[in-house]
């Protein structure tokens, strides 16, 4: 279980996150909702050590997480809104390079892992193609594959459908569900109602840097009076 306790962050005297706390189990999808500037992306950036928290405690399965060195442990991975693939490399190299250079995997083994993931995400025929020649959907699948190659226990996806053709939402929902079925913790931010409809998970509504409501999606739908703000997303 991932536990985040009293996370606070101030940027230029503006409080972005205020004592934000939540817990989420392995195999669950945590969906962070809220308006623009609510602090959703900042939360994912802090968990991935792209920003630093002013205060807060982080534990995974009872063990304290040191976010300053979390990237080298490959405990957590991030799929960016605009994918951020390495544009000078091929699809295969985007997966093998981090494996070889950051995880110390041999070239042969890295290629084997890459082939497995490219096959899983229907990109095997694009293995030797430069990523700038891929479509948006293919880029996102590759971004997920690249993150997954390092086998993180937690995967964060920042607005996973915002840069994609809306017709691809079903496919993205399927990939996200598969990640959680592999017993990973999946954390994502979204404004996409169609994606929200297709995912089952724990919803967290962030307003002004703090979680104001949280609950399982099914509970929010069946008990709207208990979760008035979250339920409004499904009305």
């Amino acid at each position, binding site marked *: 279980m991932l536990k985040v306790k009293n996370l606070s962050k101030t940027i230029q005297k503006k409080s972005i996150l205020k004592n934000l706390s939540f817990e989420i189990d392995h195999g669950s999808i945590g969906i962070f909702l809220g308006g623009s500037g609510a602090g959703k992306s900042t939360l994912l950036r802090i968990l991935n050590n792209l920003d630093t928290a002013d205060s807060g405690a982080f534990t995974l399965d009872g063990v304290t997480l040191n976010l300053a060195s979390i990237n*080298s442990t490959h405990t957590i991975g991030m799929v960016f809104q605009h994918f951020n693939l390495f544009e*000078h490399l091929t699809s295969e190299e985007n997966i093998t390079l981090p494996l070889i250079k950051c995880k110390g995997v041999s070239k042969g083994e890295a290629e084997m892992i890459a082939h497995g993931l490219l096959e899983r995400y229907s990109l095997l025929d694009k293995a030797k193609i430069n990523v700038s020649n891929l479509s948006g959907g293919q880029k996102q699948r590759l971004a997920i594959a690249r993150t997954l190659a*390092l086998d993180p226990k937690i995967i964060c996806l920042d607005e996973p459908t915002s840069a994609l053709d809306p017709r691809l939402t079903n496919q993205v929902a399927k990939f996200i569900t598969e990640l959680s079925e592999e017993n990973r913790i999946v954390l994502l931010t979204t404004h996409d109602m169609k994606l929200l409809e297709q995912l089952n998970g724990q919803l967290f509504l962030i307003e002004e840097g703090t979680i104001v409501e949280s609950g399982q999606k099914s509970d929010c739908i069946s008990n709207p009076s208990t979760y008035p703000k979250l339920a409004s997303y499904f009305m």
Partner: protein
Amino acid sequence: MIDFTLIWDSLPSLMHGTSISVQITLIAMVIGLSFGSILGLAETSKSRSVRFIIGTYVTLFRGTPMLIQILFVYYVLPQFGVMIAPFWAASLAIGLNSCAYISQIIRSGVNAIPKGQLEAAHTLGFSSIQTMRYIIFPQAFRISLPSLGNEMITLVKDSSLASIIGVMELSKEASIIRSRTYDAFSVLLAVSLIYLVMTGILSFCIKKYEGKVRKHA
């Protein structure tokens, strides 16, 4: 009138000079590209002192004539006990000058790379040096290729400045033939053509390489 016999008879000397010019250009290229790339990448660091040192170096080498820099390396360094042969003094000075320009070309290339590339590398666990080596530099180099090509062509022409300290490169050989025969037109025409061929070949190779890189991208 063009004296073709004089040009034909002078060819061995001119070819020798060409070979020296090419050697100076290549050495200056190696110095410029290697140290210029390192300085360009280092200048994007957060350290103020690193940026200040590189900025001072660039200001000094871009703000003073290359001719003076060659004279400085050849005549002033020996006063501090550093003796350098004319050929090496010229190659070093031209290389160090080029280094200042190349560092700025690479720095601009690095600045043109989206921040997201750095962030992706960071989350995947690349160290700062690995990020520069495997992610940022290859992309910055590609972006900078046209400007780097121009700098390489400039180096070929700048190699003629080595003549000031007596290096027997192409223009110095031409100068000797001219003073011996008093036929400036024929000799300078021949030398100009040789420089044109050298820059033309280099320009062709750079364009080919750019095309290859673009095709791969």
